[in-house]
């Protein structure tokens, strides 16, 4: 479904990604893990078109999408819940979800997806009219994920959805990610919380200083001694 081929990304003179190869099959949860600054967010930003690769290609459903502007990438069926939530604090919760559905023009489908999002995150329904800026951090994270779901993406990119959340909320969020996949959305998940990410993922990629260090099934990665030492804190 998604194929990142030899992608190199620079920020000015600084190289952030060195010939990265990542692929995601339809129906999978794939996770990218790695330390701060490894290039996880940059990988997602490249897929979404927020940064352009200097070399290499991003293919999605057999189409070269490298260099497409972000709003066109969304139309093809890839949406992202960015690092740091980035909800529109000056808009209400409901308006944020409306913005998530910006590319759509099917009112019935949108209404049913809104129900689905409210089903996943009942608290958003209660707070629908409230300003998004008044939500707690956990609620804002739910809104960011819900907003990304409103475009009914084929592929959902999640950048550190568990960041800064209380442990019980982290479990809740990971449970919801599993639900999202079981409803037919493919997920590419960036996480620092490597153990929990691997426990719900099918496959994982370990990034280090802009390169793919290892890629394997989630089970193998969880079992690997080297990974346990470096990323699972054992």
């Amino acid at each position, binding site marked *: 479904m998604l194929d990142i081929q030899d992608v190199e990304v620079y920020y000015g003179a600084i190289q952030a990604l060195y010939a990265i190869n990542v692929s995601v099959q339809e129906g999978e949860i794939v996770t990218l893990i790695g330390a701060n600054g490894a290039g996880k967010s940059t990988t997602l930003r490249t897929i*979404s078109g*927020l940064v352009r690769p200097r070399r290499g290609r991003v293919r999605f459903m057999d189409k070269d999408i490298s260099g497409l*502007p*972000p*709003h066109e990438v*969304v*139309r093809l069926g890839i*949406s*992202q819940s*960015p690092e740091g939530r*980035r*909800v*529109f*604090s*000056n*808009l209400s919760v409901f*308006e944020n979800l*409306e*913005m*998530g559905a*910006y*590319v759509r023009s099917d009112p019935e489908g949108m209404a049913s997806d809104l129900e689905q999002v409210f089903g996943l995150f009942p608290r958003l329904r209660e707070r629908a009219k409230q300003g998004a800026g008044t939500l707690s951090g956990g609620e804002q994270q739910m809104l960011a994920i819900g*907003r*990304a779901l409103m*475009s009914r993406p084929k592929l959902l990119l999640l950048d550190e959805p568990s960041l800064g959340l209380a442990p019980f909320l982290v479990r809740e969020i990971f449970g919801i990610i599993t639900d999202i996949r079981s409803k037919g959305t493919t997920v590419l998940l960036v996480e620092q919380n490597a153990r929990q990410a691997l426990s719900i993922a099918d496959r994982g990629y370990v990034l280090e200083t802009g390169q793919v260090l290892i890629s394997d099934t989630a089970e193998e990665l969880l079992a690997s001694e080297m990974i346990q030492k470096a990323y699972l804190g054992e």
Partner: protein
Amino acid sequence: MLGSIYALIALGYTMVYGVLRLINFAHGDVYMVGAFIGLYAWRYLGLPSEEGQAQVVSTAGLLLMMLIAMVGAAALGVLIERVAYRPLRRAPRLTALITAIGVSMLLEYGGQLVFGTTKQDYPWLAGTVPSSIGSAAGGSSGISIDRVDVIILVIAVLLVVVLQIIVHGTRPGKAMRAVAFDREAASLMGINTDTIIALTFIVGSAFAGAAGVLVGVRNHYVEPLMGLTAGIKAFVAAVVGGIGSIPGAALGGLIMGLSEEAVRAFYPELADAVVFGVLILILVLRPCGLIGSQTAEKV
């Protein structure tokens, strides 16, 4: 009312600042061009005039002048955005600011080239003409002047209400607010941010065009440098209201105009000094403006 004119211009400053964090110095000159477009439309298109009075435009004629000026000013605004600002989207903000000053000068001096350097007579609005036009040159008083102010105020209020409906009730309006808050996150929603920015220029410039025609029928003349002072005052009004805030710009414009008119009635030569003094005082007390948010400059 002068205040409603300033309010209409201030809206454009505040909206463009909202989406681009750019002070569009050319905005006052778009207002000037709008005024001239209205004038030429009236001269050459034979818009409805009052029976037998060539220098008097009917209310319907005024609305048509405004409409044409709004379309023309919107086109100019979008052209400026496309040619001067969009190529600088990733450039440092100071670069765009200097470009804005350049565009402003281009319009001011280009305007003198095209429209001439002298004041040009603007038609009177039907029902606001004193018994003898000749004797009324320079501030005349009486009911006739009040009527033009009332009409200006009504039109301005209607436009602001329409704007509020657009911004809070329509998809592009909500997208505008989303882009103003976080352009990159907005693009991740599938919003074409360039289109929304262009739309912001369209709406803001159209309002300036309307203000240009209204000030023309109020003052009975227009000139190519009229955007300079009005632009600065409207910009200050936007800052006082809290730049980025639409109700703030409307409120700031009203305060600006009312205080200017009040002071001018007693100390004409001190008007601008007193007005700017009051505004500085407001900003000292409330640095983010009357309706500005503390976080407005976080980006």
